[in-house]
């Protein structure tokens, strides 16, 4: 078996440069219209953290089914396009279960896939066992039955279907068969829940797709972080250009200017890492494990740093709730714990390099 493609059984199409640019543009336009800062704040204050109308618009644009094969009603595209879309999602702080559905798209089969693509099902993915990076979940598999609790499952509270992925295989469980406990989260643009299992579950596959699902998740998240970092830097540079102190734009002071230069290096490096990981995953490169690991920590670290230093560069205005800077920091912090933290992925990176050598 190979885990080099999004799905072992379908080769993802790859758009040419012009179509790729058009895809990015269309997502950017949609989000500029439907996912403004005011929209983000409104959705944050929702109990569910979800906006069904916005999700519907994303379905219609084909973004939700982006990596679902065409035969199941999706766009049949791959990691490269997913990463591109996620850069826009990150820039706009889009509160929507795109990473979850992208990971689920790798794990689900025929009809369930079609329902992801047409928007009638939202799926959340719980990694368990060896794939639960921090070892917080205690889900046990006995035959086709699941018990125990999966912790910190993104988007579980709005999911119709919970996909459980671990070394014992892939299972789906209907919402009605689990107990979902939404968690109070620091980043309200990315909701989490604990999911308790009481037995009923359907095994839909072995564990062979699980690494790819996680890799797709990393690529999507890395794209989000690269896009978030870039937008936060743009906002900060714009503010530093317009804000005057001591009769000068604060961006003319070396203290601010030099921080901005360092952040550009972070943000551009994140973009390079995310895109390279996407490309290597799409191509099934021999060195993709290293590329994925690199993107995982480089993009997370970059987004946190750009958001952190960006607030500092703003000064007092960014210490207020009404300024959006802290929303980027919250998003950066949540992403940095989602599928493994920096130390975890630096360790996996060096393991991958050792394996390559």
């Amino acid at each position: 078996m190979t885990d080099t493609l999004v799905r072992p059984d379908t080769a993802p199409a790859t758009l040419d440069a012009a179509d790729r640019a058009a895809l990015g543009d269309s997502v950017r336009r949609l989000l500029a219209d439907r996912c403004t800062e005011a929209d983000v704040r409104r959705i944050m204050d929702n109990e569910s953290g979800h906006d069904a109308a916005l999700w519907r618009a994303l379905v219609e644009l084909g973004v939700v089914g982006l990596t679902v094969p065409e035969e199941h009603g999706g766009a049949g595209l791959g990691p490269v396009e997913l990463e591109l879309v996620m850069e826009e999602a990150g820039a706009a702080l889009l509160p929507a279960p795109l990473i979850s559905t992208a990971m689920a798209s790798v794990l689900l089969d025929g009809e369930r896939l079609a329902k992801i693509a047409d928007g009638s099902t939202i799926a959340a993915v719980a990694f368990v066992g060896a794939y639960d990076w921090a070892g917080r979940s205690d889900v046990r598999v006995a035959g086709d039955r699941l018990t125990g609790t999966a912790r910190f499952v993104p988007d579980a509270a709005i999911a119709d279907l919970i996909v459980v992925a671990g070394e014992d295989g892939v299972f789906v469980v209907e919402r009605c068969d689990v107990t979902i406990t939404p968690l109070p989260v620091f980043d309200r643009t990315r909701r989490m829940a604990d999911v308790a299992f009481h037995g009923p579950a359907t095994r839909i596959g072995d564990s062979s797709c699980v690494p790819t699902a996680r890799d797709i998740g990393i690529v999507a998240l890395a794209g989000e972080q690269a896009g978030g970092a870039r937008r936060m830097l743009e906002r900060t540079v714009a503010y530093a250009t317009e804000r005057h102190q001591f009769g000068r734009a604060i961006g003319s002071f070396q203290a601010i200017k030099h921080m901005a230069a360092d952040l550009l290096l972070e943000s551009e490096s994140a973009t390079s890492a995310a895109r390279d990981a996407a490309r290597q995953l799409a191509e099934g490169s021999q060195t993709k494990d290293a590329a994925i690991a690199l993107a995982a920590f480089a993009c997370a670290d970059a987004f946190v740093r750009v958001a952190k230093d960006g607030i500092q560069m703003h000064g007092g205005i960014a210490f207020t709730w009404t300024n959006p800077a802290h929303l980027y920091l919250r998003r950066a912090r949540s992403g940095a714990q989602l599928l493994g933290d920096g130390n975890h992925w630096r360790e996996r990176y060096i393991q991958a390099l050792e394996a390559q050598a």
Partner: protein
Amino acid sequence: MSSGITDEALRAEVAAWLADNWTGLPAHHESFGRDPRSEWLAKVRDAGWATPRWDAEWHGRGLSNEQARIVERAFAAVGAPGAGQDRSNLWANTALAHATDSFKRTIVPQLLAGEVGMCLLYSEPGAGSDLAAVRTRANKVEGGWRVTGQKVWTSGAAVADYGMLIARTDWDVPKHRGISFFFLPMKQEGVEVRPLRQITDESHFNEVFITDAFVPEENLLGPLNGGWAVLQTALAYERSVMGDAARGPRSGAGGPKGDYSLLGLAQEAGRLDDPIVRQDVAQVIAWRVLNKLNTQRAKADMAQGTSSPIMSLGKLAMSRILHEEARVRTMLLGPESLLEGPEHPRAEDANFLSLNAYFTSIGGGTDQIQRNIIGERVLGLPREPEIDRTIPFRDVRAG
């Protein structure tokens, strides 16, 4: 100045006074606004312990610095507040040094007893790092001034009786030379206080909207248009205590506090067997301890009459400590750090600190401004040429 009393006699007198008078304070008190400890503080003032270094005219005893410390230590030993305000009370010191005679006779005793609430009206939306760029205007009218403008980052404004205000009284001179310093009465129409929501989702600060508010003539501190110098002495008081004063995590249940709290958290989180964690925890604790050692050394130097470059480093040091501690706390907690709210106090601490660290690294002068100050005033490096220092304020570009 020597007061003629021996150290022993002084020690005995203050001990006896405390034995006679100190019975403790109500358990809870709010640190802004009118001080509920006023009754006690008035007693301390009247006995001469509030301001032992000052003359009797100002409720003092004309003690030397060394003897005044005897008084302070005696109060500290029993946990009684109010002594040594001649060093610590920003408001009373500023008023005594700069207020008109008539005003300070009224206000200084009240300030020493905490009978009036105070707030600072310095920063504006357009004047943060650059305080000399204030655009709040005070226009001369019969008997005083009429003030209009907007101030931000004001603590305790809602319960304050006076605000220490800087406002522009001359627009046709360079920015530092057209500012005056006032005690603005806060309880009047024309002063509106709105809470400011911080990134931590708390509201410790306010915006203050001032519209045609009146400040009487006698409430001017220092000369008209000489407010910048008054402000500098007031800021010096603040800075000298800032390094120690950065606020820690807000939760009461987030594990042991203090310099070594990270060690406890690492243990609790079961992470103390990780060599990487051990290095990071060691480094953050080390910075905390070094900052404390620096401060002790600075205090010892100052006691010996040498000026110390170290004091000004405290705030900058604390800024690095808090941001780095937030990072390490987050690493220790892993996914648990995604949570917030009172049921997750350790996560609450880590997340709160990750945001509240900016209170130290931005508030009261950003780290960048702090580095300017250290570079110029401590290391003696040349100032940056200031393009707006010599032109009339009207012509300065703002935004």
